[in-house]
């Protein structure tokens, strides 16, 4: 059985205690809301994109250590990145979470290899979550909310 050390790595607890990019953004930043229906957690992602680049991102709401630290690390990782890079990162992260869902299979080879190259950085610390399948939904909550925010961006 996996131990708690796999889950609660120091860097995760650090992001949990001191979340980065916490707060809200006024319009025209896009706002999306995510629920984890299993535990009641609610997260809001605010996304400010200009010229295809994430200028700013903020995260609000409440959740457990895994969902909030994942949100915090995500916000750090994507700030300043192009939307293409963000998409690649999301795919990379979801792959790490073992989410080989049918949709993912349809990614073409190019995109898949791009995804493999994207650097996860701090996010690697969340790898241990895979051993605790129930928590995967916590780790991916912010990411799904981010995807939703991106889908609501005005067409460029």
């Amino acid at each position, binding site marked *: *059985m996996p131990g708690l050390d796999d889950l609660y790595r120091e860097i995760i607890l650090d992001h949990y205690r001191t979340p980065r990019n916490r707060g809200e953004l006024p319009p025209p930043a896009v706002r999306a809301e995510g*629920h984890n*229906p*299993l535990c009641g957690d609610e997260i809001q992602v605010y996304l400010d994109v200009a010229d295809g680049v994430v200028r700013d991102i903020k995260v609000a709401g409440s959740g457990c250590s895994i969902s909030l630290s994942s949100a915090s690390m995500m916000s750090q990782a994507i700030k300043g990145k192009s939307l293409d890079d963000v998409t690649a990162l999301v795919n990379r992260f979801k792959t790490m979470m073992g989410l080989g869902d*049918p949709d993912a299979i349809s990614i073409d080879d190019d995109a898949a290899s791009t995804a493999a190259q994207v650097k996860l950085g701090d996010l690697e610390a969340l790898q241990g979550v895979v051993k*605790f399948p*129930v*928590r995967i939904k916590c780790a991916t909550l912010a990411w799904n909310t981010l995807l939703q925010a991106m889908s609501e961006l005005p067409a460029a």
Partner: protein
Amino acid sequence: MTLDGALIRKDFPIFERLIDGAPIVYLDSANTAQKPRQVIDAMSTFMETSYAPINRSAYRLAAEATDAFEGARRKIARFINAPSVDEIVFTKNATESLNVVAQSWGRANLRAGDIVVLTHMEHHANIVPWHMLVAERGIVLRWVPLTADGQLDLTDLTTLLDGAKVFSFTAMSNVLGTLTPVKLLCDAAHAAGALAVVDGCQYVPHNVTDVQSWGADFLAFSSHKLCGPSGIGVLWGRTELLDAMPPFLGGGNMIADVRLDGFTTAPLPAKFEAGTPPIIEAIGMGAAIDYLSCLGMANVRRHEMDIASYALRTLNERYGDDITIHGPTNIELRGATLSFAFRDIHPHDLSQVLDQRNVCVRAGHHCAKPLMRLLGVNATARASFYIYNDESDVDALADALAGASDIFGF
């Protein structure tokens, strides 16, 4: 591979039981099938070692139970070749599955005057839910008639389907044993702009099922007829349809959020699975599907064709005009479910007399009263064969029929 009924019977503890010193000749599998040790053990072991809530708790025992439960869903998706595992909705039985289609899809999409086409050989489960919409909504039912040998009479199918919103039909009659041309019927429904709803209750346990090659829109079936436990059934539906339908039952698990002033629904399949699901039953159904898959559904079909041929031959040769077997004589067009009339003996009496030799056949209207009226009877006797039956069971039936004549003094 040829299946050996006698060998398969060894997996089913009930065939060790003796009544009046003799084993049971179970010929009522179209009603409900017996359970192999593999299914019984899977359920017991799960309750003994891994029982826990599904999907709602963070501890390991619950994660393990969830994996087992969702694993069963994946097995079922593969068994019917569903494009996505999220399209497998657990219900309590096929009847509920068909009611979900009629009540949830139907209420959202059918208005007064809308046409739903059924066939004359449907089970009440595929009739009454639509009758309820006739009463509530004023929809109109049309019925595909039957040929003299109990097949669907498709002569006027195009006319019947003209303007229809739904074509709901069985893939195999539980009375006549008739197999219907499912793919052709799905295509015809779609050509008319209607949905194709398949009642797979009698088909899925006995044949290779492939919803994608059929091009069906919905499929309903039950666990208990495929050697799994009671208390669980399946509704498969295409994602777009399920996504667009309103929920059916409200409660826990099917929601994304609940406030004092309203609620939002969870994604598929949770949206249609309100409340605590049939957890132990899903484990059992998964084990039944493993068991059947191991035999191979093509082999199951071949085994049943062999028994059905032998049964038709034996009964007709032995009893000639004294027996009338309903349904197609061409084995390619039928399963191993035989409804019959024997002399003038009422099916109820027949079943009772056969039971004295431990031959279990069902007597009644088989939940198909419209078909009974078409056949001009109140009831039939029905012998239905499955994997654990073989030619010896046919012989037992034929021998027991002789005894019936004695009592009723012909």
